């Protein structure tokens, strides 16, 4: 298994960047329904499956979620952790597994390029894309096709990266470690 690669989020975001540029010229041949589609789906299923436990939602946001697949959350949350995270950082549903959002947050901190995209508001999942190739959907802009009523919030600077970085420096008490010590003791 290649899951250990997830612990190198910066490496993965560099790979993502490179890969995104690499496949751009192939847009002509990569279409839904093209002869190459089954191959792309297979590569995604095997490759991203091995590294990220990919669930083939067809609208990949890995680089916005700390290189952690948000669909592996039992509640399919795309916008951050629920309130049920255990004090040891494990999942409400599977007590023996770490919460994927705790991991996503820690990994995003080590992603200088895309880490802040964790603050983006992710639109509802398009369930029709389940099982399709997210690379094709990305190239063809299919995953950008949001419901007409959805008002995107990208332009609302509720917290800018600058404020966030500045503020985090002043948060001296790392309650995360304080609490896990309490748990252990």
């Amino acid at each position, binding site marked *: 298994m290649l899951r250990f690669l997830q612990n190198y989020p910066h490496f993965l975001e560099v790979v993502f960047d490179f890969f995104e540029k690499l496949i751009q010229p192939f847009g002509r041949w990569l279409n839904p329904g093209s002869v190459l589609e089954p191959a792309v789906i297979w590569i995604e299923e095997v490759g991203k499956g091995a590294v990220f436990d990919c669930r083939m939602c067809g609208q990949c946001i890995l680089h916005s979620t700390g290189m952690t697949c948000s669909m592996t959350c*039992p*509640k*399919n*949350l*795309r*916008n*951050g*952790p*629920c*309130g*049920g*995270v*255990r*004090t040891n*950082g494990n999942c*409400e*549903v599977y007590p023996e597994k770490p*919460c994927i*959002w*705790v991991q996503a*947050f*820690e990994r995003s901190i080590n992603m200088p390029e895309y880490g802040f995209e*964790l*603050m983006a*508001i*992710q*639109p*509802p*999942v398009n*369930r029709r894309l389940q099982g399709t190739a997210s690379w094709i959907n990305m190239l063809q802009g299919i995953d950008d096709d949001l*419901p*007409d*009523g*959805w*008002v995107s*919030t990208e332009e*609302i*600077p*509720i*917290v800018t990266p600058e*404020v*966030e970085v500045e*503020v*985090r420096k*002043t*948060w001296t*008490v*790392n*309650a*995360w470690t304080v*609490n896990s010590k*309490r748990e252990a003791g």
Partner: protein
Amino acid sequence: MDSKRMDGKLKAGGRLERVLRSGRFAVTAELNPPDSADPEDVYRAALVLSTVCDGINAVDASGAHCHMSSVAICALLIRAGYEPIYQVSCRDRNRIAIQGDLLGAAAMGVRNLLCITGDDVSVGDQPEAKRVFDFDSIQLLRTARMMRDEGVFLSGRKLTTKPRFLLGAAANPFAPPFDWRPLRLAKKIAAGADFIQTQYCFDVPRLREYMKQVGDLGLLDEVYMLVGVGPLRSDRAAEYMRTKIPGVVIPDEVVERLRKTPKNQQREEGKRICVEIIQQVREIKGVDGVHVMAYRQEELVAEIIEGAGLFPRPRKTGASDPASRARPRSRNSPEE
């Protein structure tokens, strides 16, 4: 920036919104939903809460246990003249059902929503059920916002009359990852939250730290914060809550304090702890009220509210000196 506070118009016109805007310390409480088809059970539970609360939460199968539905409880509460807060969770219904229910609730006169993810089915009494989670809480909040402000369904189809809602969201400052929690609050505010009700607070220092971080991000004036509190019935109840109910964190000191109390006085002691927490929470900058969750002990809510000196409602902390009374929390005041 998009916030409740810029324009003077009321968003929903409900009692809760008026109390929050007036600068009074608000109190909401949770109604324990009956396992019954008798409306009297709802009225009886609401009666003890109604005299001391500005809003009553109708929970949506909390803990994934089946009870009377929240929309039906809201309908009954409105019929009796109370102010319900309609809790909508993403666990049981998909986006089509939820948007329909929102319109229906608004038509009946519901003016407050609380958009939550919902406890997982695995903690409930029917763990074999299918989990839906078509939306997450932020997408739900955003959709409700679009219905209210743009007057459209998610699909873009127009509504002939917009629903009027004060939009609420939940927050849990007591669950990890702690440094992400204030940022998640920022996301919820961006998605449209007007008020927040937090998970049970038993760890006041942690809440203080959280509120400081929220302040650092400049969010205190963007949202009304209601802190969740509640009485513990006994040390055993406390132990059960912190091990079995997702997201409830109770520090050892609190459980220990109850354990040292004789069994027949534990209920009284639990109430005292709750009152003390409310008094401490009131002192924290940016806290606009409390949300009392007294599971199966609603009769205690009135005593707690009076014991904490919240009846009649005092002004919020920081609004007591004349200078700030003239301009309470600048952007919150309806006159501007």
